[in-house]
C-alpha cells in the first residue's frame, strides 16, 4: 500500500511531499506520470510545481495527461486524492473538484504565510483539527484565486465542501486576509466525495518538526488510514 505522488514535467514539490509523508510514517512513492499508477496505490497526491510551464492555464496540460484518467477512476472507487497548489489547479482543470484557480488579484506571484480557518472538521483531511481552528500554512502561487459563481459557491458551503478559508489570525474571514482574491476566501474544497480534496496552501511544507511549525501534518495524516 503506498501513496502515489504523481510527477509531471515541471512538478517540484513531489519529493518534499514524499519526505513529509515519510516523516509521518506513511509510505509515499514518486510515480512518473507516463508510468501509470502502481497497483498497490492506496492514496494519490497531485503535488505542487509548474507542470508544463503553466502553459495555457496552470494545470491545464497535466489535467489532460493519460494518468489523470487513472486518477479519476481511482477517485471514483474511493481512493483518497489530494491536490496541492499546482495539484489543486490540475484537480479543478480535470473536474475532480468544481471551480477554477486563476490569476491572483494582485497579478503577482505570492509566496507568504497565510492563516486558514478550518470550516469543516468532519472530513478525512481536517478531522485532526477543530472546526474554527486557525492554522498557518505557506502559499506560493501566481494563479491561486478560486473562481466559482455565487450559486455554486453557496451549494459548496451548504454541502460542507469548503475545508479552509483564508482568514485573519483571530479567525475572522475578511477581504484583507484574502491573499489572492479567492471567491468566498476559499482555500480548499472537496470533490464529489470528501475523499477528494484540493488546496492551494502547502501542508507538506509545514509537516517536518525539525524545520518549524507542523500545522500541515493533520492534512497529510489522512493518508494513514489508506497507506
Amino acid at each position: 500500500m503506498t501513496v502515489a505522488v504523481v510527477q509531471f514535467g515541471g512538478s517540484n514539490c513531489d519529493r518534499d511531499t514524499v519526505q513529509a509523508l515519510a516523516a509521518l510514517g506513511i509510505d509515499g512513492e514518486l510515480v512518473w506520470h507516463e508510468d501509470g499508477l502502481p497497483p498497490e496505490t492506496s492514496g494519490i497526491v497531485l503535488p505542487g510545481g509548474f507542470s508544463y510551464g503553466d502553459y495555457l492555464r496552470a494545470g491545464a496540460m497535466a489535467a489532460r495527461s493519460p494518468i489523470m484518467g487513472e486518477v479519476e477512476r481511482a477517485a471514483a472507487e474511493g481512493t483518497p486524492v489530494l491536490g496541492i497548489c499546482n495539484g489543486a489547479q490540475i484537480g479543478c482543470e480535470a473536474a475532480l473538484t468544481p471551480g477554477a484557480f486563476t490569476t491572483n488579484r494582485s497579478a503577482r506571484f505570492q509566496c507568504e504565510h497565510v492563516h486558514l480557518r478550518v470550516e469543516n472538521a468532519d472530513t478525512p483531511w481536517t478531522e485532526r483539527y477543530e472546526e474554527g481552528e486557525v492554522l498557518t500554512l505557506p502559499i506560493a502561487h501566481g494563479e491561486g484565486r478560486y473562481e466559482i459563481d455565487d450559486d455554486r459557491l453557496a451549494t459548496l458551503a451548504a454541502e460542507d465542501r469548503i475545508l479552509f478559508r483564508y482568514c485573519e489570525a483571530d479567525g475572522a474571514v475578511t477581504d484583507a486576509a484574502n491573499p489572492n482574491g479567492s471567491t468566498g476566501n476559499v482555500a480548499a474544497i472537496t470533490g464529489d466525495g470528501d475523499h477528494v480534496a484540493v488546496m492551494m496552501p502547502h501542508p507538506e511544507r509545514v509537516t517536518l518538526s525539525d524545520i518549524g511549525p507542523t500545522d500541515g501534518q493533520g492534512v497529510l495524516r489522512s493518508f494513514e488510514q489508506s497507506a
Partner: protein
Amino acid sequence: MTAYTATVTVRLKRGVLDPEAETTQRALERLGFSLEDLRSADTFEIDLDATDEDDAHERAADMAERLLANPTIHDYEVEVDQR
C-alpha cells in the same frame, strides 16, 4: 477536404476579475492614453482540413470545450475561414 483556419477566441466571462488586463490598462494610462476599459483575450489559429465549414467549426469548438477554454471562467467563439 478543404483547408480552413479556425480562429478560437477565449476570453474571461463578463464579471470575472482580470488582473492582467487591469495592470495593462494602468500601464497604458501611465503612458498618457485615455481609455474606459480594457479586456484581454487569447486567440488560437488552428489550420485544419475539413469536409466543409460546419465540420471545421465543430471540430474547433470541440477543441475549445476540451482544452482551450475553461468553462468555469471562459466564454469562447469560433470563426472559420478558408485557407
